[in-house]
C-alpha cells in the first residue's frame, strides 16, 4: 500500500498527531506530513515526559536510584530494575544467591507476560477492537495480584536489590503462579480464536509495516521487533545473564517482518515465559535471597561496565561508570523503545495513516521509557 513519494502532486499538509492522541499511548507527538491519508514524512517529537533519570542517577546514591528504575518502562518495571542492579552488581562484584536469581527470573517472566498481555490489548485498541483489552486485563490482573503479594506494589515494583531481592517468595506465591499459568494456558486458545484467527485482524496486520532485519540492525531495534524480522536475537540467549542458561526455552522467530509477525512473536513469547517460570518453580533452590555482606552504601571500584537484559520490549542496557564514590559517575540507560521508535520515520513513509498507527502500535512503545 505504499505510493511513490515523487509521483504525487506536492499538495501536502501537516497533521499534528499528539501529544495527546488515543493511538500514541502517552505524550508522544508525531509531526506527519500527509498527502491525503498517505504519510509522506513522520517526524516523532519526543521528550514530553523527559525526567532526566540519568542525572538523578548521578545525584543520588546507588540504592536511592532503585525506585527510579520502575518509572521508566512502567509496564515492565522489573526489567529496568534487573538491568540496573545487574550492572551495579557486575561493577561491584557482588554475587547473588541462586534462589534470588531464580526469583528474579520468575518475577521478570511474569512481568513479561503481563507486559505482552497489555500490549496485545493495546494493539487491538489501536486497531479499533476494544474487547480483547479487557480480557487481557483480566488475565494481567492476576499477574499483578501475584506480584503485589510478593513485591508490595502493582506497577512500580522496586523489588530487586543489589545482591538479591527484597522479599522471599512463599508457597502461596508458588501455588498462585502455577494456578495462573494453568489458567492462562487455558485462555490462549480463546485469544487464538478471538484475535489471531479473526479475518479482520489478519487482513489488517498481515503484510503491514515491513521492517527488514537490516533496518533493525541499523537502528538497533531489538526485542520482538527484530525477532519478528527473522533474527533470533534475544539477550537471554545471546549473553545469558542471571540463571537463564539453566532453562530450556526457545526464542520465537517469525520471518514475515510484518505487524503480524511481531504479534505472533509476543504471543509465542508468553508461552515460552510460562515454560521458563514452570522450570524455575520446579527447580527453585532453597537458601537466602540476599547476598551477605552487602555494604549499606555501595561504593564500587573505579571503572565502568555494561549490563543488558532482555526486557519485554527489547534489549535494555545500563552502563555504569563509577569513580569510586557512593554515587554513580555516569549512568546510561539504554532503553529499547528509544531505538525501536527511531525507525518509525523510515518505515512509515508512504503508509496510510491507520496503517502507520498499527505499525506504531506493533512497536510496543512505552513513551516514558523513550523519554526517560
Amino acid at each position, binding site marked *: 500500500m505504499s505510493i511513490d513519494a515523487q509521483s504525487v502532486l506536492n499538495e501536502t499538509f501537516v497533521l499534528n498527531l499528539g501529544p495527546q492522541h488515543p493511538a500514541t499511548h502517552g505524550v508522544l507527538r508525531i509531526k506527519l506530513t500527509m498527502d491525503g491519508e498517505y504519510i509522506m514524512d513522520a517526524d516523532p517529537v519526543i521528550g514530553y515526559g523527559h525526567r532526566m533519570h540519568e542525572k538523578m542517577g548521578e545525584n543520588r546514591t546507588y*540504592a*536511592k536510584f*532503585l525506585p527510579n528504575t520502575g518509572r521508566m518502562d512502567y509496564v515492565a518495571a522489573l526489567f529496568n530494575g534487573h538491568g540496573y542492579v545487574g550492572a551495579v552488581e557486575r561493577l561491584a562484584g557482588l554475587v547473588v544467591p541462586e534462589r534470588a536469581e531464580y526469583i528474579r527470573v520468575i518475577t521478570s517472566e511474569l512481568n513479561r507476560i503481563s507486559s505482552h498481555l497489555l500490549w496485545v490489548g493495546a494493539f487491538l485498541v489501536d486497531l479499533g477492537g476494544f474487547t480483547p483489552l479487557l480480557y487481557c486485563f483480566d488475565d494481567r*490482573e492476576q499477574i499483578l495480584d501475584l506480584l*503485589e*503479594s510478593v513485591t*508490595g506494589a502493582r506497577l512500580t515494583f522496586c523489588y530487586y536489590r543489589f545482591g538479591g531481592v527484597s522479599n522471599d517468595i512463599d508457597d502461596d506465591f508458588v501455588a498462585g503462579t502455577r494456578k495462573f499459568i494453568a489458567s492462562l494456558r487455558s485462555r490462549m486458545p*480463546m485469544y487464538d480464536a*478471538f484475535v489471531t484467527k*479473526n479475518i479482520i485482524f489478519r487482513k489488517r496486520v498481515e503484510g503491514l509495516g515491513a521492517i527488514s532485519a537490516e533496518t533493525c540492525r541499523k537502528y538497533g531495534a531489538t526485542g520482538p521487533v527484530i525477532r519478528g524480522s527473522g533474527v533470533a536475537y534475544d539477550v537471554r540467549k545471546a549473553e545469558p545473564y542471571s540463571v537463564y542458561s539453566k532453562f530450556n526455552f526457545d526464542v520465537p522467530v517469525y520471518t514475515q517482518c510484518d505487524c503480524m509477525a511481531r504479534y505472533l512473536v509476543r504471543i509465542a513469547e508468553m508461552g515460552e515465559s510460562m515454560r521458563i517460570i514452570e522450570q524455575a518453580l520446579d527447580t527453585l533452590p532453597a537458601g537466602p535471597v540476599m547476598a551477605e555482606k552487602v555494604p549499606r552504601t555501595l561504593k564500587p571500584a573505579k571503572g565502568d561496565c555494561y549490563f543488558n537484559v532482555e526486557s519485554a520490549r527489547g534489549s535494555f542496557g545500563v552502563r555504569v561508570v563509577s569513580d569510586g564514590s557512593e554515587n554513580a559517575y555516569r549512568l546510561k540507560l539504554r532503553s529499547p523503545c528509544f531505538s525501536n521508535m527511531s525507525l518509525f520515520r523510515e518505515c512509515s513513509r508512504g503508509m496510510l495513516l491507520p496503517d502507520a498507527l498499527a505499525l506504531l502500535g506493533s512497536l510496543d512503545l512505552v513513551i516514558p521509557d523513550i523519554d526517560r
Partner: protein
Amino acid sequence: MITYIKEIVCGVYTLFVGMWITFIHMFRRRVTLNYPRQSLKMTPRYRGHIDLKRDEATGQPKCIVCMACQRACPSGCIKLDGAKAEGAPRKALTSYTLDFTTCSLCGLCVESCNFDALKFSKEYNLASMNKDDYRMDLLKRVLEKK
C-alpha cells in the same frame, strides 16, 4: 475461484467464532468490583505509606531516632527529630513527619530500619483536595491509634 470462496467462508466463520466468544463471556463472572461500595483488602506486603510501629509494652513508638530512614529516602520526604530526656536511656522521638506528596512508596525506609520500627500502612483510599493532608504527622498517628 475456490480459494476466493474458501477465504470468504473461512473469514465469515472466524467472525462468527469471535461473536460467539463475546457472547459466552456475557455469562461469565464479573471481574470488577463495584468500587467504592466494594473494595479489596490489601495484601500483607502492600506498600502503602509508612507508619510507626508501637511498642505494646510502653505504648511509645519503637523508633530510636537513628535517622536511617531519613538517610535512605530517595525523595527526602521523611523528617524526624528526637530528644534525650533527663535520665532516659535513649533518645525519644519528638516528631516524625512524612511528606506524602513527594513519597514514591519505594519502601527503602522500612528496609533500612534495623529496629523494626516502621511498617507499611494498608490504607490506599488517600485522596484529598488539600495538600496539607499529606504532610502526615506519624508520631501523632501512632500515639492516637489504640
